[in-house]
């Protein structure tokens, strides 16, 4: 085993020093996937607007006005729909969250400073903590903004508020106790209005209202958060389609690079030297296989991190993703072994190898996603190992595969890999003597 690891490390070192190899193994797949991801995302790339579904159950003047504010804000990409559809969209990851304006919304909004605060219901996957916090902040802000527009005349509003304050101050005992927070808020708000009257600066006032509500503990609206567990059966964005393709290209790059490197070992005499070492030919081939496997896993992990962080790709299951990546890597190690016996020289092996890989990729959905292919090609594409790798990877990312389906696809990949490796190794051994 030590010898196999030494062989593999040598090959990885050689790959790192070969700029063309490194390009095809890492940069090309990345560029490919980003390019197609951007093209199919309908221009603009990763827009910052959060896609949310909006359900207006209240249907009052006030709720419609609030919806209008959200739509015009540009911070949210609003889709108006009913609750069932919204939940479904969120579950499938098409929309990040849904927002419900419940039927008491308009009425409670009238309770500016007393009575029950308005409630907004939001629903999203429990893992999306960042989005939940951001959404609540945004909604609070817009709600406050709505407030401000209610008071077209800040001076009048100030008077009204003063009346409210006086009323609170007249209360005694427990009744008074109830309104301590509100009282403190109104006092500060009063200052804010005073500023507003002098500065006429709308947004500054909203900001100060927000901080004051936070400082005093008074909340103008309350959120009811319901959890909708993400259940993936469709890509959330175009990068979730192009990410598995990036992995396919990385694996193709690795298979080609290591397959050709085995031919180079033969033509450059180093294979002769390896064969006079006290190791078996099978160890030499195993070392090559391990190097190819290792390179795929490393590049695959790097791409995964990049696409997760920068392109909003979210694997439905990390475990399944690891399974898919590992079994695809095994499959491509087999392909690598077969490629190494296809040509006698570097040039012929490279030419035949890349041609074979490109056809495999084309048929298997490495270039054009499988789900946009006509069904007759899709049937035909089953002969390409690339298809199984794409399906397994998509299964882990957005197809929402069950464990059984995952095992089935991984099994096929490992099977193909082992068979191709054995065939390749046999041919290699027979031509070595």
């Amino acid at each position: 085993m030590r010898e196999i690891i030494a062989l593999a490390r040598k090959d990885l070192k050689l790959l790192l020093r070969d700029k063309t190899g490194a390009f095809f193994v890492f940069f090309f797949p990345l560029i490919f996937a980003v390019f197609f991801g951007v093209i199919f995302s309908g221009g603009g790339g990763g827009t910052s607007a959060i896609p949310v579904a909006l359900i207006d159950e209240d249907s009052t003047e006030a709720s419609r006005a609030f919806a209008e504010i959200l739509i015009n804000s540009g911070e949210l990409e609003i889709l108006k729909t009913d609750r069932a559809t919204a939940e479904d969209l969120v579950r499938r990851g098409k929309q990040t969250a849904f927002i419900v304006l419940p039927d008491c919304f308009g009425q409670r909004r009238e309770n500016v400073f007393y009575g029950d605060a308005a409630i907004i219901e939001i629903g999203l996957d429990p893992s999306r903590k960042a989005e939940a916090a951001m959404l609540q902040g945004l909604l609070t802000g817009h709600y406050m903004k709505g407030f401000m527009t209610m008071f077209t005349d800040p001076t009048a509003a100030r008077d009204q508020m003063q009346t409210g304050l006086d009323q609170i101050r007249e209360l005694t005992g427990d009744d008074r106790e109830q309104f301590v927070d509100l009282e403190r808020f109104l006092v500060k708000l009063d200052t804010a209005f005073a500023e507003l009257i002098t500065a006429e600066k709308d947004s500054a006032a909203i900001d100060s209202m927000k901080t004051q509500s936070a400082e005093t503990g008074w909340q103008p609206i309350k959120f009811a958060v319901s959890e909708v567990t993400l259940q993936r059966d469709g890509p959330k964005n175009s990068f979730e389609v192009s990410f598995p393709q990036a992995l396919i290209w990385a694996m193709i790059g690795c298979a080609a690079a290591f397959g050709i490197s085995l031919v180079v070992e033969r033509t450059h005499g180093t294979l002769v030297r390896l064969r006079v070492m006290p190791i078996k030919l099978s160890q030499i081939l195993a070392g090559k296989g391990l190097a190819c496997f290792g390179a795929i896993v490393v590049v695959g992990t790097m791409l995964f991190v990049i696409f997760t962080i920068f392109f909003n790709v979210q694997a439905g299951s990390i475990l399944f993703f690891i399974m898919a990546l590992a079994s695809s890597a095994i499959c491509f190690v087999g392909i690598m072994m077969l490629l190494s016996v296809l040509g006698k020289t570097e040039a012929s092996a490279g030419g035949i190898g890349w041609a074979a890989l490109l056809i495999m990729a084309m048929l298997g959905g490495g270039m054009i996603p499988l789900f946009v292919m006509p069904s007759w090609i899709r049937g035909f594409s089953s002969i390409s190992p690339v298809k199984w790798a794409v399906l397994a990877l998509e299964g882990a990312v957005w197809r929402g595969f069950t464990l059984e389906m995952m095992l089935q696809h991984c099994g096929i990949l490992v099977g193909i890999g082992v068979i191709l490796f054995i065939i390749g190794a046999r041919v290699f051994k027979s031509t070595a003597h």
Partner: protein
Amino acid sequence: MLKLDNVHKSFGKLVAVNGVSLEIKPGEVFGLLGPNGAGKTTTVNMAVGLLEPDQGTVSINSNLSPLEPATRRKIGVAPQALALYGELTGHENLTFYGKLQGLTGKKLNERVDWALDFVQLKDRQKDRVDTYSGGMQRRLNLAVAVLQDPQLLLLDEPTVGVDPQSRNAIFDNIESLRGKGRAILYTTHYMEEAQRLCDHVGIMDQGKLLALDTVDGLITSYGGKDIIIAELESGEVKIETNDPVAELEKLQKQGKLLRFRLERSNLENVFLSLTGRQLRD
């Protein structure tokens, strides 16, 4: 240490090695001398198990087959075709091959240093091999062979393109390995090398071992006579003789010997008389 017994090897119709038998003992340098295509490399390849003989046997330490990986632990080979990774440094090449030979840790570092010294490449060890000159690559190729201090060394034209100074240093080092009891097979088509280095020499041509003896033995048996070119008062004479001393005494008695030159016979003449051809055309 190494014994070939009547080995044959053909490639299709071409008979590359045709019934070669030879034995190399510990502490001996055996030279295989022959022109291009004689079958030297094919013989070496069979000795290390890269090729299986069609007929005949190869044995290491009297009963081990080089086809077994474990046996190859005892053998160091410098293949005729350079076998190095150009993208790695000299040091990295040696470390890598050392690991495959089972060396580790401190021992590995020691041996790598020693091998670099052996071929005088210490100052270039951190450079990539594809920046080496041809002779330097050839020397590194040899360093890999001696790396694990094997009992049997098979050196297939290890000094082609190496400058005289480095070559002399390498010869000295090979001689010290012989002193430590290593068995060495050395193939070459330079008769000077064989003459300087080898205890026994096999003359090979067209797959056959035509003669096998010590250098002196070969010259005595096949080298023909020494030649005296003498200048007398009467003019220049050229005399072939087996006993130059007696011949010179005779000349001196005959008349005044002004000058003379002695041309000792060599392996070139041995080859010529064995094959009717020059070693190098």
